[in-house]
């Protein structure tokens, strides 16, 4: 040991090695500190182990104490020891304990200093401290320890530890505050990439919801119809959809109401083919449709309300149901995937494959029908049941459609059915003519002229029928021709795309929906019958006329029965 003279010491650097532990606390004694570090054995083992981790348990008697980990690192330093020696008076007490001032004149206390060891390693505790839930008793004990930490004797400390051990036996404590031992930096990735996409999606959804609005199966009694849409804003000219959308929108400029089958046929004529789903998208941008009423499931131009325009009567819906006697033909063709040309159906050149076909009056190639639907409208409002026409008028038109289709039935055995429907149509037409003759006498002459024209038409039709019946040879030839036409149709349709079948699927949906409507319509038919009688009674008071009305009601009943039979058979099919 060198005596400090004038604040200076000299010596030689030692070769003795030592290490230090930067203890993160203020232990009451070195022995207590060693205990918390796992004892001499624990410290020795930590220095030799590969991980070089030194475990520190602040409460070694607590089984739930979570250790803090110390990491071993190399360091460069020395250990300097400063001591005070009393040379002259051994018994004298030291007044200046911590003072390093040297008073050479007095010479009673002598300070000595010397570098005693070289420091090569150190343990640092950079991890999380073990903060843990401590009950008040433990807190009080800890506080007492703080007050007496400088004066506590090893024995006293042991007694305290014993007390803690006894108390801990009966208490359950949470394991530890945090599962992490070492703090680490967590870098959150910025959501710059996905954020804008989500916003775009949301904006797109809102955009469509606002602009497109409801277009499918709108209720017939709705007040406001969908407004016209600027589809050019979200269909780019360079995309494939542009020409499609232009073609579809142009159709609704040509006329405001279309059947889906007719739209498909027109697009096919232009060489444009697309899937069922895509066609729906193009249609909804330009049109909408009602879920019931005289335009059921017809696509109607956006912004156009057929309920306010009497001219829309020519676009009303018409249906044809195959008579029960001829239904075998439809059953035989049920599995026939080929679909007749829609133009041929509307021109009455082919008998439909389906038991029920929905048509548009405007498209039917029949002189009588086209003349009748273009007469001035008699009603001022568009009703849910019959639109701008009277129910009697619609029945007459329906019979006319049946006459035209049955006349082209491709098989034998339809003559009786044809005669029956023909006679029924003629009776219905007479009733219509008589109603018209009741108008003011100024118009009577014109009506009479039209009546005579109709009679001529009837005569020609009857002559054709008679000729067919009388000449058997001619009948056979007609059958052969029909068969040839069927074969040609099959070949044409076989070459068609699968997309057409998708369209037929949509058609079936329409059929199912309208079936329910028709059932409801004809179920309520008898209740409206008294009104019809009342109307007729007011118009005509003679008993003879009344008998004719009874015959008409019988016909209506038979129609209702036919529909019921249709429903039953269709249910059986399902």
């Amino acid at each position: 040991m060198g005596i400090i003279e004038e604040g200076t010491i000299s010596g030689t650097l030692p070769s003795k090695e030592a290490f230090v532990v930067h203890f993160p606390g203020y232990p009451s004694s070195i022995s207590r500190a060693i205990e918390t570090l796992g004892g001499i054995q624990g410290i020795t083992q930590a220095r030799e182990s590969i991980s070089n981790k030194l475990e520190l348990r602040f409460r070694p008697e607590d089984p739930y104490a979570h250790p803090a980990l110390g990491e071993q690192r190399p360091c460069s330093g020395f250990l300097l020891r400063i001591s005070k020696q009393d040379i002259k008076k051994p018994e004298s007490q030291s007044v200046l304990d911590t003072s390093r001032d040297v008073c050479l004149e007095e010479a009673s206390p002598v300070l000595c200093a010397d570098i005693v060891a070289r420091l090569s390693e150190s343990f640092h505790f950079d991890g999380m401290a073990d903060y843990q839930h401590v009950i008040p008793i433990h807190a009080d004990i800890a506080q007492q320890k703080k007050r007496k930490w400088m004066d506590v004797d090893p024995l006293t400390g042991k007694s305290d530890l014993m007390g803690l051990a006894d108390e801990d036996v009966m208490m359950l404590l949470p394991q530890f505050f945090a599962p992490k031992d070492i703090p680490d930096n967590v870098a959150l990735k910025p959501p710059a990439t996905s954020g804008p996409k989500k916003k775009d999606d949301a904006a797109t959804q809102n955009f469509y919801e606002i602009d497109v609005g409801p277009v499918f199966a709108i209720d017939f009694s709705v007040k406001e119809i969908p407004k016209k849409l600027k589809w050019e804003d979200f269909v780019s000219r360079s995309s494939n959809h542009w020409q499609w959308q232009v073609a579809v929108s142009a159709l609704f400029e040509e006329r405001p109401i279309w059947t889906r089958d007719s739209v498909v046929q027109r697009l096919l004529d232009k060489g444009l083919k697309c899937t069922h789903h895509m066609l729906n998208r193009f249609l909804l941008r330009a049109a909408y449709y009602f879920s019931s009423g005289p335009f059921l499931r017809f696509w109607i131009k956006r912004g156009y309300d057929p309920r306010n325009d009497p001219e829309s009567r020519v676009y009303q819906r018409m249906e044809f149901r195959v008579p029960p006697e001829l239904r075998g033909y439809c059953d035989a063709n049920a599995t026939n995937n080929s679909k007749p040309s829609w133009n041929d159906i509307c021109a009455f050149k082919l008998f439909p494959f389906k038991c029920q076909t929905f048509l548009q009056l405007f498209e039917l190639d029949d002189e009588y029908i086209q003349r009748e639907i273009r007469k001035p409208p008699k009603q001022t409002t568009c009703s849910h049941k019959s639109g701008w026409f009277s129910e009697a008028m619609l029945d007459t038109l329906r019979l006319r459609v049946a006459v035209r289709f049955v006349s082209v039935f491709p098989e034998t055995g339809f003559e009786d059915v044809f005669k029956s429907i023909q006679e029924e149509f003629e009776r219905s037409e007479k009733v219509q003519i008589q109603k018209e003759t009741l108008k003011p006498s100024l118009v009577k002459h014109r009506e009479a002229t039209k009546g005579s024209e109709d009679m001529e038409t009837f005569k020609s039709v009857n002559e054709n029928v008679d000729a067919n019946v009388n000449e058997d040879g001619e009948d056979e030839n007609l059958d052969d021709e029909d068969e040839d036409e069927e074969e040609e149709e099959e070949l044409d349709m076989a070459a068609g795309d699968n997309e057409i079948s998708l369209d037929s699927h949509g058609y079936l949906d329409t059929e199912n929906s309208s079936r329910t409507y028709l059932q409801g319509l004809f179920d309520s038919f008898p209740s409206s019958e008294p009104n019809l009688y009342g109307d007729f009674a007011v118009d005509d008071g003679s008993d003879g006329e009344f008998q004719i009305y009874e015959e008409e009601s019988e016909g209506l009943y038979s129609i209702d029965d036919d529909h019921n039979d249709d429903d039953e058979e269709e249910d059986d099919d399902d």
Partner: protein
Amino acid sequence: MEDEHVMIDLDDVSRHIDIPADAPYTLSGLDTLNPVLTIDGKMKLVGEYIATIGTCLAFSDKGDNQTPQKKTVEPVAKLHKILKFRLAPLDNEDGVTKTTNL
């Protein structure tokens, strides 16, 4: 005999100088706030007192000659002062200081 220990921290200068073993040293200015450590009569280091965070425990390796493989540690000291040294800036300053004293 009362002992107090101070840790001499040379981590900041160990990268610049090589401290040989068994080199003579002179530690002066122990009665000031900035002691000066001269190693081997060449390198001058100026020290500054800092406090430890918590407590610094010093241990020495204890080896038994009879059984060299068996190792253990022995506590040496518990200290709360660190004397952190850095390289002395210039000799002129020291000269100036001495001149002033004279």
